[in-house]
């Protein structure tokens, strides 16, 4: 099978790009931006091409490549894509150029949340100013003059920011593409570092303590989870060595193994905890609001939009096929956590005054739905969950972005500082509304399809739970509409808000594809579902979970809702 090594190319392009961009001197920051945008667009093109080349009817991984890496431990560089990973790769490839464009000025301007006095700060290239000491931060600035020994902080490096974005993209693609458990783990951990620096270095300038706190919290949570997973990964290797004679990390080989249930449970827990922290599921979520609030806008979009999907992705890709018995055993627990998460996230979101935290909490609720769908063990629910991953990336990503625009204009994340913006900035308000509606899964938006699938799928397996979860939708409506009402509708309360400018062209460019996709996928999700469903069905079939209602064919189900 010699095809184009799509995945490897998609890995190399951003990774190499990251190195190149990082090496650029600061004064070439414009070039860095352009280069990053170009590269990420290239990746997007590649991803689309790969999707086109993908054959949904073929079982197993496609575009697969495998080379020995560390032979001693049976580790190989193996990449491949199935339906689940492909759509997520697509999502990542889509979001990165969007984020790049959205962050065009943010990195150089010391983060979007400062400069409250300058309403045009975010929009005007090269004219942003930093409040406290007024040090010049224009793109053509003096090289190396940022240090004068008088306590001035130096300007943040623009190329470094974009290099980190590219590195993050490489990590994200790698983590989805890996078909070697070890390789997956490596990407899983390696992704942390650029994200960590994005939060810690490029978060809100004024809140230095909080953002480094958030960064460290993020890193430590993830590291801790990662280390648990490492133990499980090593355990898996040792088990495979016992079972197969020589240890391996190859996913396809590993899923053939029969592991004794006791061991399965331990290994499952190792993986599950890591993914639950990453996703995050209910009791492991506390890092998310901090990280979400303290990330730069682009970082937050990628963090919640893609990075956290690694957790849910891991659940369906690794936890369930590798440890079916354990997955069965722990399913009630996971489902319980998922439902708690739906309510808990929604309730907290309602009570938030910090917009970014609010959005982060809504994500918690959405992840609850995803987990619910994953562990319902029906192909509808599973497909719905995977689709939900994509949709959530789009809707929450857009939400974060819009909130980011707002914050950049106004300099505060406090809900109370806004109000009546629909009159001042109608386009912005409109986009906000679309994002919000998508987030609350209004029919016609993308999320509706996935949420519906999840609930229906769950219903066939576990009726009460599905019913309880459904009420979560109501809460979603509350927090979104409440937020919209407080910020966009009504009279303009604050004087400062009257001078806010509407979306610039660049910003419109940023949100346009997102809005388009939200609507398009809400109307016609079939292409994605076609890719997703066979894989999900195969996954569940592999562990002996056929759908409980044989009268419903999967195709009919998915087709029916499209």
């Amino acid at each position, binding site marked *: 099978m010699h095809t184009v090594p799509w995945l490897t190319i998609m890995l190399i392009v951003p990774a190499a790009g990251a190195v190149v961009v990082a090496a650029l001197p600061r004064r070439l920051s414009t070039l860095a931006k352009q280069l990053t945008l170009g590269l990420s667009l290239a990746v997007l093109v590649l991803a689309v091409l790969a999707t086109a080349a993908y054959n949904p009817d073929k079982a197993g991984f496609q575009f697969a490549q495998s080379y020995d890496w*560390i032979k001693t431990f049976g580790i190989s560089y193996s990449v491949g894509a199935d339906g689940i990973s492909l759509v997520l790769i697509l999502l990542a490839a889509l979001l990165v150029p969007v984020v790049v464009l959205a962050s065009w000025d943010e990195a150089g301007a010391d983060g979007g949340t400062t400069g409250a006095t300058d309403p045009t700060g975010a929009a005007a290239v090269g004219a942003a100013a930093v409040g406290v000491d007024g040090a010049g931060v224009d793109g053509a600035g003096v090289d190396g003059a940022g240090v004068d020994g008088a306590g001035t902080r130096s300007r943040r490096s623009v190329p470094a920011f974009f290099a980190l974005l590219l590195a993050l993209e490489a990590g994200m693609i790698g983590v989805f593409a890996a078909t070697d458990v070890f390789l997956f783990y*490596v990407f899983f951990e390696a992704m942390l570092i650029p994200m960590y620096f994005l939060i810690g270095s490029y978060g809100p300038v004024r809140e230095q303590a909080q953002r480094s706190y958030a960064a*460290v919290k993020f890193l*430590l949570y993830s590291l801790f989870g990662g280390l648990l997973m*490492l133990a499980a990964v090593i355990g898996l290797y*040792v088990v495979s060595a016992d079972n197969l004679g020589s240890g391996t990390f190859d996913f396809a080989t590993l899923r053939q193994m029969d592991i004794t249930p006791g061991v399965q449970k331990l290994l499952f827990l190792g993986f599950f905890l890591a993914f639950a922290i990453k996703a995050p599921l209910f009791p492991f979520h506390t890092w998310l609001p901090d990280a979400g609030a303290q990330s730069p806008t682009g970082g937050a979009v990628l963090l919640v939009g893609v990075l956290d999907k690694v957790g849910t992705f891991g659940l369906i890709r690794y936890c369930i096929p590798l440890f079916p018995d354990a997955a069965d055993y722990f399913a009630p627990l996971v489902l319980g956590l998922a439902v708690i998460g739906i309510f808990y996230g929604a309730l907290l979101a309602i009570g938030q005054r910090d917009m970014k935290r609010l959005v982060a909490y809504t994500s918690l609720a959405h992840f609850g739905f995803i987990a619910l769908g994953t562990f319902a063990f029906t192909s509808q629910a599973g497909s719905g969950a995977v689709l939900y991953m994509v949709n959530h990336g789009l809707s929450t990503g857009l939400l974060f972005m819009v909130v980011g625009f707002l914050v950049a204009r106004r300099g505060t994340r406090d809900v109370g500082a806004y109000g009546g913006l629909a009159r001042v900035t109608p386009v912005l308000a409109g986009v906000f509304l679309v994002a919000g509606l998508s987030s609350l899964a209004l029919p016609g938006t993308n999320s509706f399809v996935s949420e519906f699938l999840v609930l229906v799928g769950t219903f066939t397996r576990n009726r009460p739970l599905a019913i309880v979860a459904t009420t979560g939708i109501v809460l979603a409506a509350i927090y979104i509409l409440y937020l919209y009402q407080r910020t966009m509708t009504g009279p303009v309360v604050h004087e400062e808000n009257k001078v806010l400018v509407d979306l610039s062209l660049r910003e419109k460019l940023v949100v346009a594809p997102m809005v388009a996709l939200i609507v398009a996928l809400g109307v016609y999700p079939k292409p994605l579902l076609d890719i997703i469903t066979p894989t999900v069905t195969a996954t569940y079939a592999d562990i002996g979970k056929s759908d409980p209602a044989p009268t419903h064919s999967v195709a009919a189900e998915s087709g029916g809702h499209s």
Partner: protein
Amino acid sequence: MITPPSIEYSSLSPILIVFGVALVGVLVDAFATKRARRTFQPILAGAGFVAALVAVAVLHGRQAILASGALAIDAPTLFMQGTILVFALLSVLLVAERQLDSSGGAIVASAAITPGSKGSTAQQTSADVQTEAYPLMVFSVTGMMLFVASNNLLVMFVALEILSLPLYLLAGLARRRRLLSQEAAMKYFLLGAFSSAFFLYGVAFAYGFAGSVELGAVADAVSNAGANDTYLYLSLALLAVGLFFKIGAVPFHSWTPDVYQGSPTPVTAFMAAGTKVAAFGALLRVFYVAFGGLRWDWRPILWTIAILTMVVGAVLALTQRDIKRMLAYSAIAHAGFLLVGLAGTNTDGLRGSMFYLVTYGFTTIAAFAVVSLVRTGDGEAGDLSQWRGLGRTSPLLAGTFSFLLLALAGIPLTSGFTGKFAVFQAAIAGDATPLVVVALVCSAIAAFFYVRVIVLMFFSEPLAEGPVVVTRPTLTFAAVAIGTVATLVLGVAPQPLLDLATTAATSGFVR
């Protein structure tokens, strides 16, 4: 009539070369002028290490018991000798650095001048160097190489002393902060002598038990032990105390932070990397060869020590304010991780430990080298608060250091991760899963203090009167570069080294 034993000088050539270089170094110190010494000594030492490295490579594959059973040359020995030599080479680069501190480097101009007396401060800027540091280092390397090769507990003891005694002196040779340095030397000496007395008592009991101190003979005696096992267990315990001291395992770790902090930083790097390899080499040999038959008896103790070491190392590192002290506690924690590999008590454990030693050594040497670059008016910027905001002012240095710290924390794509993976895999394969879980928790704790430094460097505002990053020192840069590249390469493509370690481990210790 006595038949004279034969000594296969060729098989000993690495040790003999290094030893010869040490002697020549002493002669150079005796006869050359100060200026000549300063230039010639590092070249000599470096050339010696390279030559010995070549000899090790040539001996590759040899397996023999030498000198009437006193020494053993086998694959693990050669592997560790090679490792020691490489680390020594890197350390020599650091010691030879003369661009750091006015014109003198890290080694004191004249150790004999009493701190605080007339001339004691002038010597901080003096171009002089106590060039004895080089021969001392080479002697120490001799001891280390002998230590990992010794097949006889008495020879092991002698080697232990050969490696330790020069280090005691080296610890006292720091150019800046003489008092701290002297103090470090004294503490190291007293505790080191104390522990070697324990080791020796263990040797005596091994002799009492087995009637011989050759490891093979002890192993034979262990296999049909019975009558006198009191001696056996006493021996095992006492030997372990001596060895655990050298690797800095808890509860025998108390010297580590003091000595690491007070010693000249290049020496600290040398100690951290070299001594650890040597001590672990000896530990592995003693436990695998001599007491292999007793593994069910010593495993629980090893577990306890390993857990203690990891926990104490990781937790106490959290409280440190001094960068070198923090790295010292991290060294303790790493000793614990190494012990986890040993607890596997299998071939994988041997391989994992050896691999880990290599990875850790490169990283730690580079880390200490970076520490030596950040300076204030009175020497290195030891206090962590002085590192504030360094990521803004010197991104390259801070980035490198962050990378090294992440490697120490065990993030994937660094050598620290592959190393940890290797030892943990061995431990799980050897039914030591709980130990691995503890190790992972400790890794997480440890990650916290590494990350804290990164936070400090990147997410804090630089100090108004911050430290200076020295930009001229070529040799230190070289050492940092080599260490960092090795850290990266061993993280990304560890297979060649793993192959080497596998070969060494599977061919095993000769007995």
